């Protein structure tokens, strides 16, 4: 009811201002220093921005700290409607189509297309949305990996699983040897995690065919993943409580959860949630569907995008490119913000392991190898709808006993219905 009266009133006022001030999206003539506004949430990214400002007196970037993820998407949509967006913003991969579809982001292919070679193809595809436009420059990626408690694996005589069959067997063996412990959990609360698992299996949830969207959230690969986890959940081989709860934190801390299928940024989370376990974890590639063709999916990751409302798109594109491909800038991003860079050369340049993994000196060498096996993925214009459907339907399915496959049809239905209701052309 009274959710955002102020916002609406503001939008109304700004909307009128937009009508008055509209017309002519020409580049601002460059006399005097250009000022660019930049919204982002990565911790300490302002220190990297300072580096740019020190080296480029003619283009000043003004940084503004934002809340992470979905909140920023809402804020960007509102500010764009109001005709007052920032010039640059940090945007997660899966939010790109939503923002492009709402006309919030600029096509910067003119200035940025040449950066294509600096990124793995799977990463680059996500900023082009499978077309000829370029809507952002990749910043960090989240290739998925398997984390496990090396000490407890040794204690229970477990081997690191390299295939999903082995993972299932290891999960069962652990339950037999230590009935109060789990190799992992199937979380109804983390659609991004499930999307990563589906990507690894070769799923393709959205696609563009000419002027038509193709949606297949319930494709064969995703069904295979859901089927697999249904079995593990139903027989109790893995836990079924959500991740990122106080209970889960405690389980990571006290060794109730001895493994975590996560992404390259996991060391930061483990440090925050399970500090007492420093040096006890190790990282390995994801269990594979086909050991001969190793693949992984992405969980998380973000980009730097230029807004369509910006009058200084050229300068903004230059900054976005510098931030994510200049060796010094990317090194600063890694050091100050703790991100895993999307640029391939920067991934290879990482030498020190994360502080939480002193026992695995080749952490980043292995991570770069894994990142190179990332699957490509096209996100749709209503990922948020699919994600909400995942949370609601998976939670229900898990409570009801664990057949997760019917959930996919619900996700597919919700996604397609929403797209059709909005007027998108959706093909079969």
């Amino acid at each position, binding site marked *: 009811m009274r*959710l955002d009266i102020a916002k609406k009133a503001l939008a109304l006022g700004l909307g009128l201002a937009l009508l008055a001030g509209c017309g002519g999206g020409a580049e601002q003539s460059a006399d005097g220093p250009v000022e660019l506004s930049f919204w982002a949430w990565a911790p300490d990214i302002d220190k990297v921005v300072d580096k740019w400002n020190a080296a480029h007196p003619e283009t000043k970037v003004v940084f503004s700290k934002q809340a992470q993820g979905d909140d920023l998407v809402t804020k960007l949509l509102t500010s764009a409607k109001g005709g007052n967006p920032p010039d640059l913003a940090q945007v997660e991969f899966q939010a790109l189509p939503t923002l492009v*579809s709402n006309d919030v982001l600029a096509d910067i292919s003119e200035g940025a297309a040449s950066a294509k070679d600096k990124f793995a193809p799977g990463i680059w595809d996500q900023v082009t949305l499978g077309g000829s436009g370029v809507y952002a420059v990749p910043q960090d990626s989240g290739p998925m990996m398997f984390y496990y408690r090396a000490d407890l694996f040794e204690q229970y005589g477990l081997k690191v699983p390299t295939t999903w069959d082995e993972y299932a067997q290891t999960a069962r063996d652990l339950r037999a040897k230590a009935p109060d412990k789990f190799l992992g959990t199937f979380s*109804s609360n983390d659609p991004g995690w499930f999307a990563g698992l589906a990507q690894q299996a070769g799923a393709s949830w959205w696609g563009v065919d000419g002027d038509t969207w193709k949606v297949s959230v319930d494709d064969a690969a995703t069904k295979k993943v859901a089927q697999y986890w249904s079995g593990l959940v139903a027989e109790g081989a893995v836990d079924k*409580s959500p991740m990122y*709860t106080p*209970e889960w934190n405690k389980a990571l801390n006290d060794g109730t959860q001895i493994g975590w299928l996560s992404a390259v940024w996991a060391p930061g989370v483990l440090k925050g949630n399970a500090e007492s376990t420093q040096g006890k974890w190790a990282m390995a590639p994801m269990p594979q569907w086909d050991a001969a063709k190793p693949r992984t999916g992405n969980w998380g990751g973000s980009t730097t995008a230029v807004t*369509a409302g910006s009058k200084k798109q050229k300068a903004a594109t230059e900054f976005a490119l510098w931030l994510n491909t200049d060796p010094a800038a990317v090194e600063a991003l890694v050091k100050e913000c703790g991100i895993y860079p999307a640029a391939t050369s920067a991934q290879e340049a990482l030498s020190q392991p994360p502080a939480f993994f002193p026992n695995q000196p080749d952490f980043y060498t292995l991570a770069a190898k894994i990142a190179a096996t990332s699957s490509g993925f096209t996100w749709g214009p209503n990922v948020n709808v699919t994600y*909400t459907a995942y949370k*609601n339907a998976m939670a229900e399915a898990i409570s009801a006993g664990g057949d997760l496959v019917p959930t996919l049809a619900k996700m597919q239905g919700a996604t397609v219905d929403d797209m059709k209701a*909005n007027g998108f052309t959706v093909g079969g």
Partner: protein
Amino acid sequence: MTGRGGAAPKLAPYAFVAPAVVLFLLVFALPIAYTVYLSLFRTEVKGLGLGKGSRSEVFVGLDNYARALTDPELGAGALRVLGYGAILVPTMLGLALVFALLLDEERVRARGFSRIAIFLPYAVPGVIASLLWGFLYLPGTSPFNQALRELSLPGVDLLSPTGIYFALANIAVWGGVGYNMVVLYTALRSIPRDLYEAARIDGCTPWQVAMRIKIPLLAPALVLTSLFSVIATLQVFAEPTTLAPLTNSLSLTWTPLMKVYQDAFGRGDLYSAAATSVLIAVVMFVISFGLLRVTRSRAFGGER
């Protein structure tokens, strides 16, 4: 006054009323009107929706209302809220009444302390209360379950699909009893003491005084607190939203208001969210009005 011109007496009332009217129009009537306006539109996308200007706002009349009314999730959410309210309202008001009557007894000691202790949870914001209770509910972190384990009894999972109703109602009871108790207690204190004296002389026990004098005279206050409780129940949002990430038993559209929030900010569809909120507002109005009407003879019996 006579020397100050004839216009003043005519203008003065308007001047006094103006701030209230302006505020009412600006922060109440205008947003409501805008919500109703929004609810008659929706965005329409052409083709892929990726090009410039591929989104436009189109007028759809009552389409959004039709869709909201036929949405099974909204109806299911309303039913869940009814179940939750059926547990919450009687428990909360019952406890509030008992505490108020106890505190009103002459022989009670530490009255001030008890009153504060019962009232204090009301000062804790709903989100924080839910986080605190969430810790206590999660089987892995719950001290109750730890205690039960020590006694080799089976643990209880209050976050199971049925348990969740009680878990949520418990948070609201914990937070709401104090407030309602204070309202009832204040009403009790305003009952003339000589009525009790007369009753005692007639040989009434404290129990009879409570049942035959205090509770009937409390009726207006009870109606008021019930009305507020029912409205608060229908608006439940913060508690289930905060607990949802902790459990498989709560969906993000568990209550109608959660659905409005999801529509507006999860799906980015302000239009259907506006339609649903208008519907919720109408239903709330009808329920509140109906409740008042049914109980009017009791509540305002003396004033008709």
